[in-house]
């Protein structure tokens, strides 16, 4: 049962890393898109692609939280009390990002759009950075069992945390660029296809380099994690991830964005899986094994049953949403973000009832 619950957690983490990560990555491209006029088209494309899906993508995070606190309550209490600073920052970032994104869609002037967009984009970078730092703290064995028992600072300010934080930002950006390139094809905007293609290739190469260089960091900072990643199932996952990444680059290069979506997902998913294998049998490395962390069987069984039944409703719903999205049924008009303000910035038509 504990294994099934861990599988749920990993499903959630992976889905959040891919879909949520892509949303954060879109924010990264928004941040680096340049001036209002120059980046207007890029930002418009991002707005259009993210709007229908970001909330559903976000719920994966909630899913992970509730499974962990039910199935692994002691670990949950330990993680949140020790890593309270990065997690709090990420939570505040989530407020800003969600609110700023929703608001920007309604901005009335270019100035408003700029401020809101800046906030949205900045928090999109901060959130994966801090979540990554927290994950690094866990993976490198810095969370101790107890109420705020680990070090409140070095548990997340350390080489492994820095590495995973940066990696989370870069991979998110890469996956986002791949997805956005595909969306631009569907929207029929060739210059955007090219723009995101370039970004996908560049960020993909950087992500690969960070990941490879990161192995050296992990080796010196968290030798147990390194051993796990370089032997047995952990190694297999790392290789799978590398292959997925290479395949994505090739597919993007060839302009096959539909398949590239899948392989990019595989690359991210494999590395999440590799993390689990690497720290097996631990839930909190060096502190708490999976079996020690697990709640009692009655709770786990109830949880597996409840989530299992829920999945019967959830999976078709998600499938329906993504199918509509991929078929373009929910697409908004593509509109460069800066242009929206030119024709109608005067606003204020006289009010009139619709029902005459």
């Amino acid at each position, binding site marked *: 049962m504990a294994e099934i619950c861990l599988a749920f957690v990993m499903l959630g983490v992976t889905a959040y890393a891919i879909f949520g990560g892509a949303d954060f990555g879109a924010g990264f491209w928004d941040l680096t898109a340049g001036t209002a006029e120059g980046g207007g088209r890029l930002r418009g494309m991002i707005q259009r692609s993210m709007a229908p899906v970001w909330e559903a993508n976000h*719920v994966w995070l909630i899913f992970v939280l509730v499974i962990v606190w039910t199935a692994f*309550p002691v670990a949950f209490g330990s993680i949140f009390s020790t890593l*309270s600073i990065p997690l709090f920052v990420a939570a505040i970032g989530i407020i800003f990002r969600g609110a700023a994104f929703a608001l920007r869609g309604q901005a009335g002037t270019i100035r408003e759009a700029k401020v809101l967009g800046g906030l949205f984009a900045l928090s999109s970078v901060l959130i994966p950075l801090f979540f990554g730092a927290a994950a690094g703290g866990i993976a490198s064995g810095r969370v101790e069992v107890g109420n*705020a028992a680990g070090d409140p600072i070095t548990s997340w300010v350390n080489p492994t945390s820095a590495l995973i934080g940066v990696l989370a930002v870069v991979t998110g950006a890469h996956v986002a660029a791949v997805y956005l390139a595909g969306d631009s094809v569907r929207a029929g905007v060739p210059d955007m296809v090219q723009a995101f293609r370039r970004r996908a290739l560049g960020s993909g190469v950087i992500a690969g380099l960070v990941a490879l260089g990161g192995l050296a960091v992990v080796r010196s900072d968290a030798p147990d994690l390194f051993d796990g990643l370089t032997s047995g199932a952990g190694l297999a996952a790392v290789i799978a991830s590398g292959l997925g990444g290479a395949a994505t680059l090739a597919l993007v290069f060839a302009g096959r964005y539909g398949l590239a979506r899948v392989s990019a997902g595989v690359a991210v998913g494999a590395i999440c899986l590799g993390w689990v294998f690497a720290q097996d049998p631990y839930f909190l490395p060096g502190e708490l094994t999976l079996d020690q962390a697990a*709640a009692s069987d009655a709770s786990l069984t109830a949880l597996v049953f409840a989530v299992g039944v829920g999945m019967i409703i959830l999976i078709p719903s998600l499938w329906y*949403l993504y199918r509509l999205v991929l078929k373009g049924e929910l697409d908004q008009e593509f509109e460069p973000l800066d242009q929206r303000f030119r024709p109608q910035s005067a606003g204020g038509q006289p009010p009139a009832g*619709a029902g005459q």
Partner: protein
Amino acid sequence: MPGMSALDAVLAAQSVVETLGGGSQPDRVEARQMQALSLGVHIPIVCFGIAFPAMILFVEGLYLRTGDPAYKALAKRWSKVALVLFAVGVVTGTILSFEFGLLWPEFMASFGEVFGVAFGLEGISFFVEAIFIAIYVYGWDRLPRRTHFLAGVPIVISGFTGTFFVLSVNSWMNNPQGFDVVDGQVTDPRPWEAMFNPNLWHEVVHMYLAGYIVAGFIVAGIYAYAHLKGRRDKYHRTGLVVALSFAALAAPVQVIVGDWAGRQVGKTQPVKLAAFEGLTKTQKSAPFTLGGLYDEKTGEVEYGIEIPWLLSLLSEHNPTAEVTGLDSVRPEDRPPVNIVRIAFQTMIAIGTGLALLGFIFFLTWLRKRRLPRTRVFYLAVMAAGPAAFVAMISGWIATEVGRQPWIVYNVMRTEQAVTNADGLEVGYAVLVAVYVALAVAVVWLLRRLTAAPPHTEVSQAELPRTKVAH
């Protein structure tokens, strides 16, 4: 059964031990304030998540039947507002989930496995809600009309189930069961028993109705204002009538459910009920005291109006029944009476007023088939929204502060549950600032959304009553 579990709980109270080793800073006011603040932000917003989808679907149903574009314009406009409020509900709810871990790690570590399954199902509910609200709002004019309408139905259902599961947790905190305590450790969790505890039913029904009352009156108030300003076309009139009908139907029922809630509290949390009433001594034929302030020293309510027997009558439906007083437990096990009592009485007063307003609306509607014409009525509707909001917050303060000093009633004290991490005051300050910014931003956005004239919601072609081809 309730007597039994209360006894178990009292025995357990002496022995439950913090799983993570306990806190060294037991009296963290900031933690409680942060929790209360975040809930106070989240709950009013999710009232719209509870009630708005049903109101929107109702209006869309009218549109499907009549083809009148005014209905479509209204439903579409409301759905955009709902989407924004949903986004705010999502982010504030996320903060709450984080806070459970950030503020109360001992609570989570000890009891997560007991009540967590409900949150698992709540998570699924919100997932479904997020999916279909996106399909619904972005699917206007793109999905076939029936499909679009049907895509709204899961939003209504998952709004209910989400409320249900989250309240199963809160009702369990008030009436904990489904576990044993052995040597201070929580053992043998029985999650289903915890989920379906006897306090669940009144809390769910009461909160669900509160959602309709709060959202309904607030929306109606906006159109009542428009009415007074002279905007009385079909679009605005429909907005007023639909929102008001939902709220006015729920308000009188709420009084009956409230009575049920009070009697259930009397059974399972007698000390809380005593705090509601400021009743110090356990007594037969207990009086009900209206208004006034409770004096901690004398244990009397000063300046209140005493109505003989009424409390016994209300809580047991028997004028001579015995009602448990605060003196049944040690002073350190009693909640702060005045906060609880004032909050409770505020809720009752407002609840009664709202029920009356609902009656007036329905009487006029049934007898004259039109809206009331007096200006006072519209002013009252405008006031009803904020009042309902206050009633709901008061109800929560009564419920939550009335449970103190326990986080899990009679089993774990709030101070045992709190985090050991430092810097809570920094977090608190940041959170306050963020919420203020969020509130400003949301008001700004809603004004922006509603500034465009309604007919912009429907295409030109539709205005002269033609169906858009697909």
